[in-house]
């Protein structure tokens, strides 16, 4: 079938098998390997990308289901002026160790901040419950996301 997607502001057209998972399309067809596959069972969140601005687990979505949508992956966050503010906050707060979960964490955090621009610590912990990190103990991840809230700017 014919798939038309806009990924990180670039339109793509491809002929795919309907059973192609979104994560496989992004990694194997477009070569956007920033998005990781951790569990392949919708538990870990490393495969999180944004579909029309909202976080989804791309291992549990057929590419066909989002035909026509606008996607953002971790590769699409940084601009000419450098890292996106959530990426910068992860950097500043040492919110990663091995980094395997990081792309998914950052995408989930971007979606969370879109829905709740001024999250409390409980909001951040709840908002990231779909993302697992085996290294950091979450503390610095939560700190990084909180530092992007409005409260932190005041």
């Amino acid at each position, binding site marked *: 079938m014919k798939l038309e997607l806009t990924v990180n502001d670039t339109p793509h057209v491809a002929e795919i098998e309907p059973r192609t*998972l979104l994560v496989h399309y992004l990694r194997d067809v477009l070569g956007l390997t920033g998005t990781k596959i951790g569990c392949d069972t919708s538990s870990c969140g490393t495969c999180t990308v944004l579909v029309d601005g909202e976080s989804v687990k791309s291992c549990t979505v057929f590419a066909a289901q989002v035909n026509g949508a606008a996607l953002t992956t971790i590769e699409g966050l940084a601009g000419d002026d450098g890292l996106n503010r959530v990426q910068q906050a992860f950097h500043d707060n040492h919110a990663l160790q091995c980094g395997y979960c990081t792309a998914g964490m950052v995408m*989930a955090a971007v979606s969370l901040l879109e829905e709740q621009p001024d999250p409390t610590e409980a909001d951040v912990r709840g908002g990231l*419950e779909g993302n697992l990190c085996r290294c950091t103990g979450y503390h610095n991840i939560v700190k990084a996301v909180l530092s992007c809230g409005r409260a932190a700017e005041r």
Partner: protein
Amino acid sequence: MISAAFDYVSARSVDEAVSALTEHGDDAKLLAGGHSLIPLMKLRLASPSVLVDVGRLRDLSYVRDTGDEIAIGALTRYRDLEINDRLQADLPIVAHVAGLIGDPQVRHRGTIGGSLAHGDAASDMPAVVLALDGTLVARGPRGERTIPAAEFFCGFLETALAPDEMLTEIRLPKATGAGWSYQKFRRRALDWAIVGVAAVRNGRTGVALVNMGSTPIRASAVERALASGSSIADAARLAADGTEPPSDLNADPEYRRHLAEVLVRRALEEADGAVTAQR
């Protein structure tokens, strides 16, 4: 994990979806959010040869006030239920429970209709719809019919829907100002309920159980006891009556029976408290 190959049909209307189901029979399945079906397909526990995607039917995503009831479109996603003002006012239990399901990514995709049609005893929304005594609306090649929630869940992952029928709407009696509670017992944030209890005290008391059998079920013995004047503690002792709770990695049946009693008691106490607090 990659699912078996299938033909993909993107339905542009309910009629188109129903005709595709009629044409392809048992080999076809509807695809809504895909958050129950895709995991099963990846494990090849389900291998439909045709998938009829109804995910683009945005006109089936709504929450409407119809007088005594709230009508919810089958394709409404959990996220949209969670933040819906009308639900927060007239059916707060639905908004609250929607926000407890899975994680944000799951709530961005999963739909209330998909959850009900899947009929998993471990799911949260079926118990809420049972406790509220809701009505389900289905469309098939012979037209539309309504099915009371109490008659909808027939067996393990089996519902009253025929293979060529689509669930289109869920009608729930308003519970404005009613006492309610949802108890979801789990070990970690994103887990499913080991046992869950939905309770609504709205003149009559509705109580339904999650993960206490092969289907979502009403705690009928508890409801009867309360109707005939039993105390909460006495009624809660009947929570596991007539249930056959499953055994899995999380819990054995005996532990689940114990949980059911404790959680039913907590739910009824909280539901009463909620009424008092609002007065």
